[in-house]
């Protein structure tokens, strides 16, 4: 009989953490964060004489893109075919990688926001009209973009292109993020909704690999079988 104790399932994530940390794409994570931070530093260093909130926000959005795209590389699992037959949940690797990446992404985003605020303060010297960075909206955008990238990566991980992982997920999610940015710009509530939907999509894609990703017509045969059995 298998050597498992009662309540072992709840301890699996903690026990697997060192191994999942070893399989984490740290290079991609830190590389993406470095690129995003560098973009913010460049924007701050070479800011014009009177930056305004709109321009600073636009530059910050551009600098957030690498951070969001990091999420496109978090769902890949080289042990995918094996883990599907194991008791541990299929979403464990992706969820752990995401949880490990979030503090780094959040810290980088915080640094970028501080740089943007400092850049905006430069322009405040020449005007008495106060300008504020719409940081809740910007953070909502970053959150939604990251969720979209994660959802795309989770879906790609279930397809025949799963070996290419982020290479497919990144450009696709970039396109989706661009469309969402144009369609939902200025509406923070809708951005949050988009992010929530993306997270739901990611969760749906990360479910048990037993289920195919599509609502297959063939499932009717299965359903009719169940009905016959009942």
């Amino acid at each position, binding site marked *: 009989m*298998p050597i*498992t104790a009662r309540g072992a*399932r709840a301890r699996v994530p903690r026990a697997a953490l060192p*191994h999942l940390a070893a399989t984490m794409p740290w290079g991609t994570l830190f590389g993406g964060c470095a690129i995003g931070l560098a973009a913010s530093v460049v924007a701050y260093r070479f800011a014009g004489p009177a930056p305004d909130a709109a321009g600073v926000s636009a530059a910050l959005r551009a600098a957030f893109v690498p951070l969001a795209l990091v999420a496109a590389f978090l769902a890949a699992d080289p042990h995918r075919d094996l883990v599907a*037959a194991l*008791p541990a949940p299929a979403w464990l690797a992706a969820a752990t990688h995401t949880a490990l990446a979030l503090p780094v992404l959040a810290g980088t985003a915080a640094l970028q926001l501080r740089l943007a605020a400092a850049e905006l303060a430069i322009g405040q010297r020449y005007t008495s009209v106060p300008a504020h960075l719409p940081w809740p909206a910007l953070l909502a955008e970053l959150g939604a973009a990251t969720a979209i990238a994660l959802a795309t990566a989770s879906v790609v991980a279930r397809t025949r292109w799963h070996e290419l992982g982020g290479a497919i997920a990144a450009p696709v999610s970039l396109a989706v993020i661009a469309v969402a940015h144009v369609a939902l710009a200025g509406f923070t509530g809708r951005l949050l909704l988009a992010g929530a939907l993306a997270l739901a999509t990611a969760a749906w894609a990360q479910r*048990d690999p037993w289920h195919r990703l599509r609502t297959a017509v*063939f499932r009717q*045969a299965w359903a009719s079988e169940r009905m016959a059995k009942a």
Partner: protein
Amino acid sequence: MEPTIMIEGLTRRYGATIALDQIDLAVSAGITGILGPNGAGKTTLLAILATVAEPDAGRLRVLGQDPRERAGRLRIRRSLGYLPQELGYHRHFTVAAFLDYVAILKEITDARQRHAEVARVLAEVGLADVAGKRIRTLSGGMRRRLGMAQALLGDPRLLVFDEPTAGLDPEQRLRFRELLSRLPGDRTVVLSTHQVDDVTAVCSSVVVILGGKARFTGTPAELADLAAGRVWSAQARDAAADLSWRGGDGSWRHIGTAPPGATLVKATAEDGYLTLTGALDGLAGLAGASR
């Protein structure tokens, strides 16, 4: 006693391709070999048994559980050891780290138990000496043995091996047979292979899958009986034979009608398999073209 695996009308499609077509199968404790050519549907069948892929139609019970239900799948996976055809691994993992990780995913969360179990399976497959080496530095055969080792973790009741002996040298194949032989009698092993002699050496039952259908189910002896009375040995090749080839001793082995001057020999399971595949693939026609 209920068979370990019960399949009725199992069907699986990939787009327009029917990978498995109304398979009926019952597998009890012991070692069952799945034979078949490339693309026959062996890997798909084993993936379904391992609860990795969902069939499109049919009924399936594994270890008394219904894999369509989430709780049933979980119970199956707790008693399952699966070796897929292609075992992915992370480039940084060592042998021991990989097995430790899989053991955790098999819910062996007690560290002492887990380490003991990892050491046990490493010894079983003869990889104890390379426990600290990175997987990417191992040979193909050693990686295959590593795959077997992870399947053995937790001493599962059901073992599903997809091409377990691919890439193994003759000694390692013998060791694999020995390993299977040491398993307790109540274990169920389902393995797919191209090597008929592996099947005859260890399997108590054989299933031949051709074109997504189960064309034969029985013992290796019954598979050999399919060619009984149709296998001949002669000193020269007979153009009228369904199939013929020259052995290492220079004599020709024929399957089909008796060539002139030939001696009837005992059919083997391989002869039976070739008879089965030859009859369905029209190899007789091919042999006719070469006359």
